[in-house]
Protein backbone atom coordinates (compact mmCIF):
# COMPACT_ATOMS: atom_id res chain seq x y z
CA UNK A 1 0.00 0.00 0.00
CA UNK A 2 1.19 3.49 -0.95
CA UNK A 3 0.08 6.29 1.33
CA UNK A 4 0.23 10.06 1.05
CA UNK A 5 0.29 11.44 4.58
CA UNK A 6 -2.65 13.83 4.82
CA UNK A 7 -0.89 16.92 6.10
CA UNK A 8 -3.76 19.16 5.05
CA UNK A 9 -1.56 20.98 2.55
CA UNK A 10 -2.73 22.07 -0.84
CA UNK A 11 -0.71 19.98 -3.29
CA UNK A 12 -1.86 16.53 -2.16
CA UNK A 13 -3.78 15.95 -5.35
CA UNK A 14 -0.92 16.68 -7.75
CA UNK A 15 1.28 14.18 -5.90
CA UNK A 16 -1.59 11.66 -5.97
CA UNK A 17 -2.12 12.11 -9.70
CA UNK A 18 1.62 11.68 -10.39
CA UNK A 19 1.67 8.33 -8.55
CA UNK A 20 -1.49 7.21 -10.35
CA UNK A 21 0.01 8.12 -13.74
CA UNK A 22 2.67 5.48 -12.99
CA UNK A 23 -0.09 2.88 -12.59
CA UNK A 24 -0.08 2.61 -8.77
CA UNK A 25 -3.00 2.92 -6.39
CA UNK A 26 -2.56 5.42 -3.62
CA UNK A 27 -4.37 6.25 -0.38
CA UNK A 28 -4.45 9.65 1.33
CA UNK A 29 -4.64 9.22 5.09
CA UNK A 30 -3.67 10.47 8.54
CA UNK A 31 -4.98 7.34 10.30
CA UNK A 32 -2.17 5.86 12.47
CA UNK A 33 -3.14 2.29 11.51
CA UNK A 34 -3.02 3.06 7.79
CA UNK A 35 0.31 4.86 8.14
CA UNK A 36 1.84 1.89 9.97
CA UNK A 37 0.61 -0.58 7.35
CA UNK A 38 1.92 1.41 4.38
CA UNK A 39 4.81 0.06 2.28
CA UNK A 40 5.82 3.52 1.07
CA UNK A 41 4.78 6.94 2.26
CA UNK A 42 4.84 10.43 0.80
CA UNK A 43 5.07 13.56 2.93
CA UNK A 44 3.97 16.46 0.71
CA UNK A 45 4.09 20.11 1.63
CA UNK A 46 3.55 23.56 0.26
CA UNK A 47 3.11 26.81 2.12
CA UNK A 48 5.14 27.93 5.10
CA UNK A 49 7.07 25.89 7.69
CA UNK A 50 5.09 27.49 10.49
CA UNK A 51 1.73 26.50 9.01
CA UNK A 52 2.94 23.02 7.99
CA UNK A 53 4.30 22.22 11.49
CA UNK A 54 1.10 23.54 13.07
CA UNK A 55 -0.84 21.16 10.81
CA UNK A 56 1.33 18.18 11.81
CA UNK A 57 0.92 18.97 15.51
CA UNK A 58 -2.82 19.52 15.20
CA UNK A 59 -3.20 16.18 13.41
CA UNK A 60 -1.02 14.42 15.97
CA UNK A 61 1.38 13.34 13.22
CA UNK A 62 4.79 14.38 14.60
CA UNK A 63 5.62 11.28 16.61
CA UNK A 64 3.85 9.01 14.14
CA UNK A 65 6.06 10.20 11.29
CA UNK A 66 9.24 9.94 13.37
CA UNK A 67 8.36 6.34 14.26
CA UNK A 68 7.93 5.19 10.66
CA UNK A 69 10.39 2.53 9.52
CA UNK A 70 9.22 2.20 5.90
CA UNK A 71 10.61 4.43 3.12
CA UNK A 72 9.20 7.97 3.37
CA UNK A 73 9.65 10.62 0.67
CA UNK A 74 9.26 14.25 1.71
CA UNK A 75 8.55 16.65 -1.14
CA UNK A 76 9.51 20.35 -1.10
CA UNK A 77 8.31 21.69 2.26
CA UNK A 78 7.76 18.03 3.21
CA UNK A 79 11.51 17.52 2.79
CA UNK A 80 12.26 20.65 4.82
CA UNK A 81 10.08 19.27 7.63
CA UNK A 82 12.59 16.41 7.99
CA UNK A 83 15.34 18.82 9.13
CA UNK A 84 16.08 19.90 12.71
CA UNK A 85 14.57 23.39 12.46
CA UNK A 86 13.54 26.05 9.95
CA UNK A 87 14.27 29.77 9.86
CA UNK A 88 10.92 30.30 8.19
CA UNK A 89 9.23 31.56 11.33
CA UNK A 90 7.73 34.93 12.16
CA UNK A 91 7.98 37.56 14.87
CA UNK A 92 8.99 36.24 18.29
CA UNK A 93 9.55 32.71 16.99
CA UNK A 94 11.86 33.06 14.01
CA UNK A 95 13.12 29.47 14.37
CA UNK A 96 10.51 26.72 13.97
CA UNK A 97 11.37 23.30 15.37
CA UNK A 98 10.75 20.65 12.70
CA UNK A 99 10.79 16.83 12.79
CA UNK A 100 14.53 16.53 13.52
CA UNK A 101 15.17 13.48 11.35
CA UNK A 102 17.93 14.64 8.98
CA UNK A 103 20.87 16.88 9.79
CA UNK A 104 20.85 20.65 9.49
CA UNK A 105 18.55 23.65 9.66
CA UNK A 106 16.51 25.13 6.83
CA UNK A 107 17.89 28.57 6.00
CA UNK A 108 16.72 31.50 3.89
CA UNK A 109 18.55 31.31 0.56
CA UNK A 110 21.02 34.13 -0.12
CA UNK A 111 20.69 34.55 -3.87
CA UNK A 112 21.20 38.25 -4.72
CA UNK A 113 21.57 39.43 -7.45
CA UNK A 114 19.50 36.45 -8.61
CA UNK A 115 15.76 36.48 -8.13
CA UNK A 116 13.96 35.01 -5.13
CA UNK A 117 12.07 32.66 -4.91
CA UNK A 118 14.18 30.11 -6.79
CA UNK A 119 11.45 29.26 -9.26
CA UNK A 120 11.76 27.12 -12.37
CA UNK A 121 13.73 24.23 -13.84
CA UNK A 122 17.26 23.63 -12.58
CA UNK A 123 19.82 20.84 -12.88
CA UNK A 124 20.79 18.65 -9.94
CA UNK A 125 23.97 16.71 -9.28
CA UNK A 126 23.26 13.37 -7.59
CA UNK A 127 25.82 11.15 -5.87
CA UNK A 128 27.13 8.42 -8.10
CA UNK A 129 24.81 5.38 -8.33
CA UNK A 130 22.25 6.74 -5.90
CA UNK A 131 19.16 4.50 -6.29
CA UNK A 132 16.73 7.43 -6.15
CA UNK A 133 18.33 8.83 -9.34
CA UNK A 134 18.63 5.52 -11.20
CA UNK A 135 18.02 5.81 -14.98
CA UNK A 136 17.80 9.60 -14.81
CA UNK A 137 20.22 11.11 -17.36
CA UNK A 138 22.97 13.40 -16.03
CA UNK A 139 22.02 17.07 -16.42
CA UNK A 140 18.28 16.42 -16.12
CA UNK A 141 16.20 19.38 -14.99
CA UNK A 142 13.75 19.34 -12.08
CA UNK A 143 11.13 21.93 -11.14
CA UNK A 144 11.89 24.00 -8.02
CA UNK A 145 9.80 26.61 -6.17
CA UNK A 146 11.23 27.74 -2.84
CA UNK A 147 13.07 30.51 -1.01
CA UNK A 148 14.38 28.45 1.93
CA UNK A 149 16.76 25.52 1.59
CA UNK A 150 18.87 22.97 3.45
CA UNK A 151 22.63 23.60 3.13
CA UNK A 152 24.66 20.67 1.78
CA UNK A 153 25.56 18.23 4.59
CA UNK A 154 26.41 14.55 5.23
CA UNK A 155 22.83 13.47 4.47
CA UNK A 156 22.78 15.22 1.07
CA UNK A 157 22.44 12.80 -1.86
CA UNK A 158 21.98 15.42 -4.60
CA UNK A 159 22.85 19.09 -4.76
CA UNK A 160 21.69 22.03 -6.84
CA UNK A 161 23.18 25.48 -7.29
CA UNK A 162 21.32 28.78 -7.12
CA UNK A 163 23.45 31.59 -5.74
CA UNK A 164 25.20 28.89 -3.71
CA UNK A 165 24.94 25.09 -3.49
CA UNK A 166 22.08 23.61 -1.48
CA UNK A 167 20.54 20.17 -0.85
CA UNK A 168 18.29 19.04 -3.70
CA UNK A 169 17.80 15.54 -2.25
CA UNK A 170 18.52 14.07 1.16
CA UNK A 171 18.49 10.61 2.73
CA UNK A 172 18.88 9.27 6.24
CA UNK A 173 17.92 5.69 7.01
CA UNK A 174 14.39 5.19 5.64
CA UNK A 175 13.72 8.91 5.19
CA UNK A 176 14.20 10.57 1.80
CA UNK A 177 13.45 14.10 0.74
CA UNK A 178 13.56 16.18 -2.43
CA UNK A 179 13.47 19.97 -2.53
CA UNK A 180 12.08 19.98 -6.07
CA UNK A 181 8.64 18.82 -7.17
CA UNK A 182 9.02 15.41 -8.88
CA UNK A 183 5.26 15.42 -9.57
CA UNK A 184 5.81 18.49 -11.75
CA UNK A 185 9.22 17.61 -13.24
CA UNK A 186 8.20 15.81 -16.43
CA UNK A 187 9.87 12.49 -17.29
CA UNK A 188 12.78 12.88 -14.86
CA UNK A 189 10.40 13.49 -11.98
CA UNK A 190 8.22 10.53 -12.90
CA UNK A 191 11.32 8.32 -12.99
CA UNK A 192 12.36 9.51 -9.52
CA UNK A 193 8.93 8.69 -8.07
CA UNK A 194 9.11 5.28 -9.76
CA UNK A 195 12.59 4.71 -8.30
CA UNK A 196 11.31 5.54 -4.83
CA UNK A 197 8.34 3.19 -5.23
CA UNK A 198 10.69 0.40 -6.36
CA UNK A 199 13.23 0.86 -3.53
Amino acid sequence: MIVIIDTGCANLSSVKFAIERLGYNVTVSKDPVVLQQADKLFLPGVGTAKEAMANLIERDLVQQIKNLTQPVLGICLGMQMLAQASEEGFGEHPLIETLGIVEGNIEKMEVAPLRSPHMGWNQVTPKLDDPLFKDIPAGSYFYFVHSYALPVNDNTIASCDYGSPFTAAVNKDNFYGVQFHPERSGKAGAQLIKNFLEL
Partner: protein
Amino acid sequence: MLAKRIIPCLDVKDGQVVKGVQFRNHEIVGDIVPLAKRYASEGADELVFYDITASSDDRVVDKSWVSRVAEVIDIPFCVAGGIKTEEDARRILEFGADKVSINSPALADPSLINRLSEKFGVQCIVIGIDSYFDEQTGQHQVKQFTGCEDATRTTNWNTFDWIKEVQSRGAGEIVLNVMNQDGVRCGYDIEQLSQARAVCNVPLIASGGAGEMEHFADVFNTADVDGALAASVFHKQIINIGELKAYLKTQQVEIRL
Protein backbone atom coordinates in the same frame (compact mmCIF):
# COMPACT_ATOMS: atom_id res chain seq x y z
CA MET B 1 21.81 26.85 -14.10
CA LEU B 2 18.19 27.88 -13.75
CA ALA B 3 16.58 27.61 -17.18
CA LYS B 4 14.52 30.36 -18.82
CA ARG B 5 10.91 29.27 -19.12
CA ILE B 6 8.67 29.02 -22.20
CA ILE B 7 5.07 29.39 -21.06
CA PRO B 8 2.10 28.88 -23.37
CA CYS B 9 -0.91 30.78 -22.11
CA LEU B 10 -4.37 29.36 -22.61
CA ASP B 11 -7.21 31.86 -22.25
CA VAL B 12 -10.20 29.96 -20.95
CA LYS B 13 -13.82 31.00 -21.45
CA ASP B 14 -16.73 28.69 -20.59
CA GLY B 15 -14.42 25.69 -20.37
CA GLN B 16 -12.88 26.24 -23.83
CA VAL B 17 -9.55 27.73 -24.87
CA VAL B 18 -10.10 31.02 -26.71
CA LYS B 19 -7.90 33.77 -28.15
CA GLY B 20 -8.72 37.34 -29.12
CA VAL B 21 -6.69 40.21 -30.54
CA GLN B 22 -5.81 42.93 -28.01
CA PHE B 23 -8.13 41.27 -25.49
CA ARG B 24 -11.20 41.41 -27.83
CA ASN B 25 -13.16 39.24 -30.29
CA HIS B 26 -12.51 35.89 -28.67
CA GLU B 27 -12.60 32.86 -30.92
CA ILE B 28 -12.55 29.24 -29.73
CA VAL B 29 -9.18 27.54 -30.17
CA GLY B 30 -9.97 24.11 -28.70
CA ASP B 31 -10.56 21.93 -25.64
CA ILE B 32 -8.43 22.55 -22.57
CA VAL B 33 -7.06 19.12 -21.74
CA PRO B 34 -5.79 18.00 -25.21
CA LEU B 35 -4.14 21.40 -25.78
CA ALA B 36 -2.49 21.33 -22.36
CA LYS B 37 -1.23 17.82 -23.05
CA ARG B 38 0.12 18.80 -26.45
CA TYR B 39 2.08 21.73 -25.05
CA ALA B 40 3.54 19.63 -22.24
CA SER B 41 4.71 16.97 -24.68
CA GLU B 42 6.24 19.62 -27.00
CA GLY B 43 8.43 20.83 -24.12
CA ALA B 44 6.54 23.70 -22.49
CA ASP B 45 8.10 24.50 -19.11
CA GLU B 46 4.88 25.64 -17.53
CA LEU B 47 1.30 26.49 -18.49
CA VAL B 48 -0.87 29.44 -17.56
CA PHE B 49 -4.65 29.32 -17.77
CA TYR B 50 -6.48 32.64 -17.71
CA ASP B 51 -10.19 32.40 -17.05
CA ILE B 52 -10.72 35.71 -18.82
CA THR B 53 -14.39 36.17 -18.09
CA ALA B 54 -14.24 35.48 -14.41
CA SER B 55 -13.34 38.81 -12.82
CA SER B 56 -15.43 41.10 -14.98
CA ASP B 57 -18.88 39.52 -14.89
CA ASP B 58 -18.82 38.53 -11.22
CA ARG B 59 -20.21 35.00 -11.28
CA VAL B 60 -19.16 31.70 -9.78
CA VAL B 61 -17.08 29.93 -12.42
CA ASP B 62 -16.84 26.16 -12.72
CA LYS B 63 -13.19 25.27 -12.06
CA SER B 64 -13.42 21.48 -12.25
CA TRP B 65 -11.31 21.59 -15.42
CA VAL B 66 -8.35 22.46 -13.17
CA SER B 67 -8.49 18.99 -11.69
CA ARG B 68 -8.71 17.39 -15.15
CA VAL B 69 -5.57 19.28 -16.18
CA ALA B 70 -3.73 18.30 -12.98
CA GLU B 71 -4.47 14.63 -13.62
CA VAL B 72 -2.72 14.50 -16.99
CA ILE B 73 -0.03 17.22 -16.80
CA ASP B 74 3.43 16.61 -15.31
CA ILE B 75 4.68 20.20 -15.54
CA PRO B 76 3.66 23.10 -13.31
CA PHE B 77 0.64 25.21 -14.13
CA CYS B 78 -0.93 28.40 -12.89
CA VAL B 79 -4.58 29.41 -12.86
CA ALA B 80 -5.75 33.02 -13.12
CA GLY B 81 -9.15 34.61 -13.08
CA GLY B 82 -11.81 35.18 -10.46
CA ILE B 83 -9.66 34.46 -7.41
CA LYS B 84 -10.86 37.03 -4.89
CA THR B 85 -10.49 35.32 -1.52
CA GLU B 86 -8.26 32.88 0.35
CA GLU B 87 -11.01 30.30 -0.07
CA ASP B 88 -11.02 30.75 -3.87
CA ALA B 89 -7.24 30.24 -3.93
CA ARG B 90 -7.38 27.22 -1.65
CA ARG B 91 -9.93 25.55 -3.91
CA ILE B 92 -7.82 26.04 -7.05
CA LEU B 93 -4.67 24.80 -5.31
CA GLU B 94 -6.54 21.77 -3.96
CA PHE B 95 -7.70 20.94 -7.48
CA GLY B 96 -3.99 20.57 -8.27
CA ALA B 97 -2.83 23.94 -9.63
CA ASP B 98 0.69 24.90 -8.55
CA LYS B 99 0.14 28.64 -8.49
CA VAL B 100 -2.68 31.13 -8.58
CA SER B 101 -2.46 34.42 -10.41
CA ILE B 102 -4.33 37.47 -9.19
CA ASN B 103 -4.96 40.57 -11.26
CA SER B 104 -8.10 42.73 -10.92
CA PRO B 105 -8.98 41.62 -7.35
CA ALA B 106 -5.48 42.63 -6.19
CA LEU B 107 -6.07 46.12 -7.58
CA ALA B 108 -9.45 46.28 -5.82
CA ASP B 109 -7.93 45.13 -2.50
CA PRO B 110 -4.11 45.03 -2.39
CA SER B 111 -4.16 43.44 1.10
CA LEU B 112 -5.40 40.26 -0.61
CA ILE B 113 -1.80 39.73 -1.77
CA ASN B 114 -0.56 39.82 1.86
CA ARG B 115 -3.22 37.41 3.05
CA LEU B 116 -2.65 34.93 0.23
CA SER B 117 1.14 34.91 0.54
CA GLU B 118 1.01 34.47 4.32
CA LYS B 119 -1.47 31.62 3.96
CA PHE B 120 -0.01 29.71 1.01
CA GLY B 121 3.57 30.99 0.74
CA VAL B 122 4.89 33.57 -1.73
CA GLN B 123 5.93 30.80 -4.13
CA CYS B 124 2.41 30.16 -5.35
CA ILE B 125 1.17 33.76 -5.54
CA VAL B 126 1.58 35.29 -8.99
CA ILE B 127 0.45 38.82 -9.76
CA GLY B 128 -0.72 39.48 -13.31
CA ILE B 129 -0.44 43.09 -14.47
CA ASP B 130 -2.10 44.46 -17.59
CA SER B 131 -0.04 47.45 -18.59
CA TYR B 132 -0.97 49.94 -21.29
CA PHE B 133 1.46 52.52 -22.64
CA ASP B 134 -0.42 55.73 -23.36
CA GLU B 135 1.52 57.45 -26.14
CA GLN B 136 -0.18 60.80 -25.56
CA THR B 137 0.80 61.09 -21.91
CA GLY B 138 3.90 58.89 -22.09
CA GLN B 139 2.58 57.00 -19.04
CA HIS B 140 2.54 53.26 -18.36
CA GLN B 141 -0.90 52.63 -16.88
CA VAL B 142 -2.23 49.57 -15.09
CA LYS B 143 -5.61 48.45 -16.44
CA GLN B 144 -8.27 46.52 -14.54
CA PHE B 145 -11.04 44.14 -15.69
CA THR B 146 -9.45 43.61 -19.12
CA GLY B 147 -11.31 40.32 -19.66
CA CYS B 148 -14.32 42.29 -20.89
CA GLU B 149 -13.94 45.33 -23.13
CA ASP B 150 -16.86 47.28 -21.64
CA ALA B 151 -15.68 46.75 -18.08
CA THR B 152 -12.02 47.62 -18.65
CA ARG B 153 -10.89 50.63 -16.66
CA THR B 154 -7.67 52.55 -16.20
CA THR B 155 -6.41 52.55 -12.62
CA ASN B 156 -4.38 55.28 -10.94
CA TRP B 157 -1.38 52.97 -10.73
CA ASN B 158 1.75 53.55 -12.74
CA THR B 159 2.97 50.12 -13.89
CA PHE B 160 6.37 50.30 -12.20
CA ASP B 161 4.96 51.61 -8.92
CA TRP B 162 2.46 48.74 -8.89
CA ILE B 163 5.28 46.25 -9.54
CA LYS B 164 7.07 47.56 -6.43
CA GLU B 165 3.88 47.57 -4.38
CA VAL B 166 2.91 43.96 -5.12
CA GLN B 167 6.41 42.73 -4.28
CA SER B 168 6.32 44.49 -0.91
CA ARG B 169 3.02 42.70 -0.23
CA GLY B 170 4.30 39.21 -1.01
CA ALA B 171 4.03 38.54 -4.75
CA GLY B 172 6.19 35.55 -5.67
CA GLU B 173 6.19 36.19 -9.41
CA ILE B 174 4.97 38.88 -11.79
CA VAL B 175 3.48 38.39 -15.24
CA LEU B 176 3.60 41.67 -17.15
CA ASN B 177 1.09 41.72 -20.01
CA VAL B 178 1.84 44.62 -22.31
CA MET B 179 -1.59 45.29 -23.76
CA ASN B 180 -0.37 47.37 -26.71
CA GLN B 181 1.45 44.31 -27.99
CA ASP B 182 -1.15 41.66 -27.19
CA GLY B 183 -2.03 39.34 -30.06
CA VAL B 184 -0.32 41.47 -32.73
CA ARG B 185 2.87 39.39 -32.87
CA CYS B 186 5.38 42.18 -33.53
CA GLY B 187 7.67 41.47 -30.60
CA TYR B 188 7.74 41.90 -26.82
CA ASP B 189 8.01 45.47 -25.47
CA ILE B 190 11.70 45.14 -24.60
CA GLU B 191 11.99 48.69 -23.30
CA GLN B 192 9.09 48.41 -20.88
CA LEU B 193 10.15 44.95 -19.74
CA SER B 194 13.71 46.15 -19.11
CA GLN B 195 12.34 48.99 -16.99
CA ALA B 196 10.15 46.49 -15.13
CA ARG B 197 13.16 44.18 -14.64
CA ALA B 198 15.08 46.99 -12.98
CA VAL B 199 12.47 47.22 -10.19
CA CYS B 200 11.51 43.53 -10.01
CA ASN B 201 13.41 41.16 -7.67
CA VAL B 202 11.00 38.26 -8.03
CA PRO B 203 10.71 36.19 -11.23
CA LEU B 204 9.36 38.31 -14.11
CA ILE B 205 7.41 36.81 -17.00
CA ALA B 206 7.04 38.71 -20.27
CA SER B 207 3.67 38.61 -22.00
CA GLY B 208 2.26 40.14 -25.17
CA GLY B 209 3.74 40.41 -28.63
CA ALA B 210 5.56 37.16 -29.44
CA GLY B 211 5.45 36.51 -33.19
CA GLU B 212 8.81 35.03 -34.19
CA MET B 213 11.49 32.97 -32.51
CA GLU B 214 13.83 36.00 -32.52
CA HIS B 215 11.40 37.82 -30.23
CA PHE B 216 11.98 35.22 -27.53
CA ALA B 217 15.76 35.44 -27.86
CA ASP B 218 15.52 39.27 -27.63
CA VAL B 219 13.36 39.31 -24.53
CA PHE B 220 15.62 36.85 -22.68
CA ASN B 221 18.93 38.32 -23.77
CA THR B 222 17.98 42.01 -23.58
CA ALA B 223 15.27 42.36 -20.91
CA ASP B 224 16.58 39.41 -18.82
CA VAL B 225 13.11 38.13 -17.98
CA ASP B 226 12.77 34.69 -16.35
CA GLY B 227 10.08 33.40 -18.65
CA ALA B 228 8.27 34.31 -21.82
CA LEU B 229 4.56 33.75 -22.19
CA ALA B 230 2.78 33.51 -25.53
CA ALA B 231 -0.54 32.28 -26.85
CA SER B 232 -1.44 32.73 -30.51
CA VAL B 233 1.92 31.70 -31.99
CA PHE B 234 1.57 28.37 -30.20
CA HIS B 235 -2.18 27.87 -30.75
CA LYS B 236 -1.89 28.63 -34.46
CA GLN B 237 1.25 26.49 -34.71
CA ILE B 238 3.29 29.34 -36.13
CA ILE B 239 6.05 28.38 -33.70
CA ASN B 240 6.70 24.84 -32.46
CA ILE B 241 7.88 24.84 -28.83
CA GLY B 242 10.52 22.16 -29.42
CA GLU B 243 12.03 24.06 -32.36
CA LEU B 244 11.87 27.31 -30.41
CA LYS B 245 13.82 25.82 -27.51
CA ALA B 246 16.46 24.31 -29.82
CA TYR B 247 16.83 27.73 -31.47
CA LEU B 248 17.14 29.54 -28.11
CA LYS B 249 19.91 27.14 -27.10
CA THR B 250 21.89 28.32 -30.16
CA GLN B 251 21.31 31.91 -28.99
CA GLN B 252 23.06 31.23 -25.66
CA VAL B 253 19.79 31.22 -23.72
CA GLU B 254 19.82 28.73 -20.81
CA ILE B 255 17.00 26.38 -21.71
CA ARG B 256 15.68 22.94 -20.74
CA LEU B 257 15.70 20.64 -23.78
